[in-house]
């Protein structure tokens, strides 16, 4: 039983996702969007109406977070942060990657075995590595040669690439750092503020708020305080 699971988690795709902040946060947010409302619905500590209301609110909030994340992180923080890092670390001799996508494609290919890089499923990544991408620190050697070799059959193995500093950790790390900063800004500052503005109109439009309004009773219990606060949010 454990064999297939280990095969999946050690696969190239899973490994790339595990090393990629953007993908990991997307998965985490999607799981939160499913898990939190589901667990809110099965929580027997609160009454049925409160559960329904809280689950709907949580689902909408997490979907909103996911939308904000998709809209802001890749274009603004991932690419913007990468461009900024290219300017900051100009002296470090990074290859002139056009954008974060190109760098990540190189990293994804460099991570796998040389023979796997030429497979059809990886063609979309290989196509992004254009001939003009060179390494200034290695007599402007072509990055494509590192991956698939001059004869297009053999490439350099990941361990060698790592040893020779041709995985470009600085470039990859700058993308990850800006993605982490972007995730924090997007999910902790923008999402609560935007949800403040649009969550209740959406809930009213879906008639999820109407029952709450009629049932709101001034009470001192923890649930009612939270309910009242949720209404105000």
């Amino acid at each position, binding site marked *: 039983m454990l064999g297939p699971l280990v*095969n999946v988690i050690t696969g190239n795709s899973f490994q790339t996702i*595990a090393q990629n902040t953007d993908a990991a946060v997307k998965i985490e947010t999607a*799981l939160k969007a499913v*898990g939190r409302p589901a667990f*809110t619905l099965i929580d027997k500590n609160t009454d049925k109406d409160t559960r329904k209301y809280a689950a709907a609110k949580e689902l909408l909030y997490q979907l909103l977070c996911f939308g904000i994340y998709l809209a802001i992180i890749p274009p603004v923080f991932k690419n913007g942060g990468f461009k900024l890092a290219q300017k*900051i670390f100009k002296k470090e001799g990074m290859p002139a990657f056009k954008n974060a996508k190109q760098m990540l494609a190189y990293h994804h290919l460099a991570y796998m075995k040389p023979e796997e890089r030429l497979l059809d499923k990886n063609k979309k990544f290989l196509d992004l590595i254009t001939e003009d991408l060179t390494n200034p620190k290695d007599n402007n050697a072509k990055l494509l040669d590192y991956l698939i070799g001059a004869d297009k059959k053999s490439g350099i193995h990941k361990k060698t690439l790592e040893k020779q500093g041709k995985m470009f950790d600085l470039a990859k790390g700058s993308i990850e750092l800006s993605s982490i900063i972007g995730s*924090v800004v997007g999910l902790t500052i923008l999402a609560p503020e935007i949800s403040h503005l649009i969550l209740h109109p959406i809930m009213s439009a879906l008639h999820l708020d109407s029952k709450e309004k009629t049932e709101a009773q001034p009470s001192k219990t923890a649930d009612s305080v939270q309910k009242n606060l949720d209404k105000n949010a």
Partner: protein
Amino acid sequence: MFIMSSFIYNQLKKTCESLGKHNDALYAVLAIAMFKGVMRPTFTMMDKKSDPKSKKYAAFREGLTEAIAFGSYIATHKMILPLAVPLAKKTGKSPKKVKNGLSLLSVCLTAGIIIPLVCNWTLKPIMDGVTKLYNKKDKKSDGKLDIKENTPQFPTPAVYSPNLNEESKKLLNTVRITSLQNYGMKVGG
């Protein structure tokens, strides 16, 4: 274009290189949980529309949720990661790859199942306890001065003034200037 001290430059370079070599999914989720734990209660407390009692309650609840999330991520990570070596030995895979995979798996497991489950179990009892405590405290110091209960009822000393007529003396003797008495009442501790 960018003026940056060499210390900041070196630290930034070190951080980027370290993240480039090994980026754990845990870093991002921990950063998010930590900042959410600070920012969400702050935003809630800044909301002028909600009443102060509800604000305090919600801010505490939000902070607590994120503290639970932060702790759960670390605990699950610590529990799952030691499985990497035996699993790698059993399946013949690279321990580093198994470790990376398990790390992401632990984050997914925690976000999707463990955090909501722990919150369901613990949040309500903790919040009920805190609300009770808060209400008790609130009753004790709700701003009303319990003069009637605690102040000993001493007879008001008669006003002796030769210049006052009988009517004025009677009137003055009926007025109790309690703020001038030193018994029972404590204002401002």
